[in-house]
């Protein structure tokens, strides 16, 4: 089985975000970029499936030159090959087309994603890729079992879980709880630095969505901070009941 794990480089969650002068992007200076946290589960799941079922695991990312760093992390964790599609940051649709192009060239049976990337949180890449390939998709998967071409999953829905069955080839997005990602060992990190990363060019599909502006949210919160006396607790209940009217 040939598995493609799709990963992305994102600003560290704790990074301070400032809006660039053009008003529709963020200042990259001083921003620490990391492997998208969900993608650690994606890579780990690919590796565990290979250990059980054989085959290959290829990691892919679409982005600028600096995003090769996360491919080295994936190589250090144990993926067989790493593919970099050099592309300016365009919208999700154009990135999805680059992934589909690579998946077709590599005869992929299973495409894995993280539940979402934590930069734009748009939760759409996996389904967009599945749509382009007209393959089944299961998102938010917390348990995945593959036997032959049968795929059995558990996914989160409101109020519980669904057991969803499908078959290969398909697209799956995974989330926390599915596995415990391994830490790459130092010798593997060193070896990964010397590995060749396969370059592919972008298919350059036109963007469908554009950012007009980015703003930092203004706090509209009341910000009434009280102490811990009985009177304070009564006042909180009054505020919730009479001012906010939420109870």
């Amino acid at each position, binding site marked *: 089985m040939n598995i493609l794990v799709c990963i992305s480089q994102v600003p560290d*969650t*704790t990074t301070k*975000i400032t809006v660039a002068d053009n008003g529709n992007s*963020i200042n990259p200076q001083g921003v620490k970029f990391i492997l998208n*946290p969900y993608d650690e589960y994606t890579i780990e799941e690919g590796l565990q499936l290979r250990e059980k079922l054989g085959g290959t695991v290829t990691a892919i990312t679409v982005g600028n030159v600096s995003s090769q760093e996360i491919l080295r992390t994936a190589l250090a964790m144990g993926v067989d090959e790493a593919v970099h599609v050099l592309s300016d940051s365009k919208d*999700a*649709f154009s990135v999805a087309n680059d992934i589909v192009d690579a998946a077709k060239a590599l005869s992929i049976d299973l495409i894995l994603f993280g539940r979402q990337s*934590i930069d*734009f*949180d*748009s*939760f*759409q890449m996996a*389904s*967009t890729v*599945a*749509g*382009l390939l*007209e393959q*089944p998709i299961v998102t*938010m998967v*917390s348990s995945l079992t593959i036997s032959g071409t049968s795929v059995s999953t*558990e*996914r*989160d*829905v*409101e*109020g*519980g*879980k*669904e*057991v*969803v069955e*499908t078959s290969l080839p*398909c697209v799956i997005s995974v989330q*926390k709880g599915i596995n415990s990602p391994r830490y790459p060992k130092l010798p593997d990190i060193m070896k990964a630095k010397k590995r060749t990363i396969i370059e592919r060019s972008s298919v350059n599909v036109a963007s*469908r*969505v*554009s950012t*007009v*502006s*980015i703003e*930092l*949210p203004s706090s509209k*919160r*009341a*910000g*009434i*901070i*009280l*102490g*811990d006396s009985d009177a304070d*607790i009564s006042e*909180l*209940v009054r*505020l*919730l009941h009479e001012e*906010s009217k*939420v*109870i």
Partner: protein
Amino acid sequence: MSTILVVLESQGSNLRRASLEAITAAKSVSSSVIGVAFNLSEQTLSVAGEYGLAKVSNVTNAEVSSYSTVAYAKAITEVANSSNASTIIFSATAHGKELAPYVAVLFNAGYASDCIALDNASGQITAKRPIYAGKAVETITISTEKKVFSLRPNIFTATKAPTSLTVESKNVSISVGTTSTVKNTIRNEGKLDVLEADIIVSGGRGLKAPEHFHLVEELASAFGGAVGASRAVVDAGWRPHGEQVGQTGKTVSPNLYVACGISGAVQHLAGMSSSKVIVAINKDKDAPIFKVADYGLVGDVFDILPKLTAKLQSIK
């Protein structure tokens, strides 16, 4: 005015409130709004009429007898095309977030997900959506003629606007190849899910040990809400992952969010900062959670939670 198709979802025998919110939101940007649903009863759908929907296509094909992404996506696209809709609006629920991008591909549309505002002032719909863990908000436009949006639940207000509803039972012509099937749905029995709750009471490391979490459960029960948890206590094994609110957990926007003994790391704020009212209870007055709180109590959770629980019980 171009027609908007709203995808309606049910929860048990009721329409999801998020679907009613989507109807109101659609009507705010277009005077021509219709709905699509799957195998719902006239009784269930009648509520859509109360919120101003005049027409719903109720798809009854065998292929969509239970949720299946590919079949649903093809059916929604078919209904949109046959009714000349130019825009499709989903709720950003578990199914909505999975379906919407798939439909966008089949419908040749650009897609804006998890939107918190729609605006049509310029004649073209723009949407606002949170990015970077809620640290920024982007305004986006879709350049394709056809457009798909999903709306974050409990952000838009559902407004009654009674109209006479026509439900059209529909058998659409779709060919579904390989698909997925929901074999079973496991409900969290006897426990309100944070994604379905109007009020959430969450506990964090300030509770000090898992055996103290009953204080959070009792407060949640007094509020009639669900129990949530921070990543720290889920990773420590005190609480199940299903309760985790935040970046690697669930994104919620209840009417009231009460954070108990939670410092308010940005990863946590990412999952709850769009809540309507936020209450923070923490002994550290400098904890970041107070910066996003409407109301705060500075003090010991072990002291405050039982008193607050008793106070709420006394006024019921």
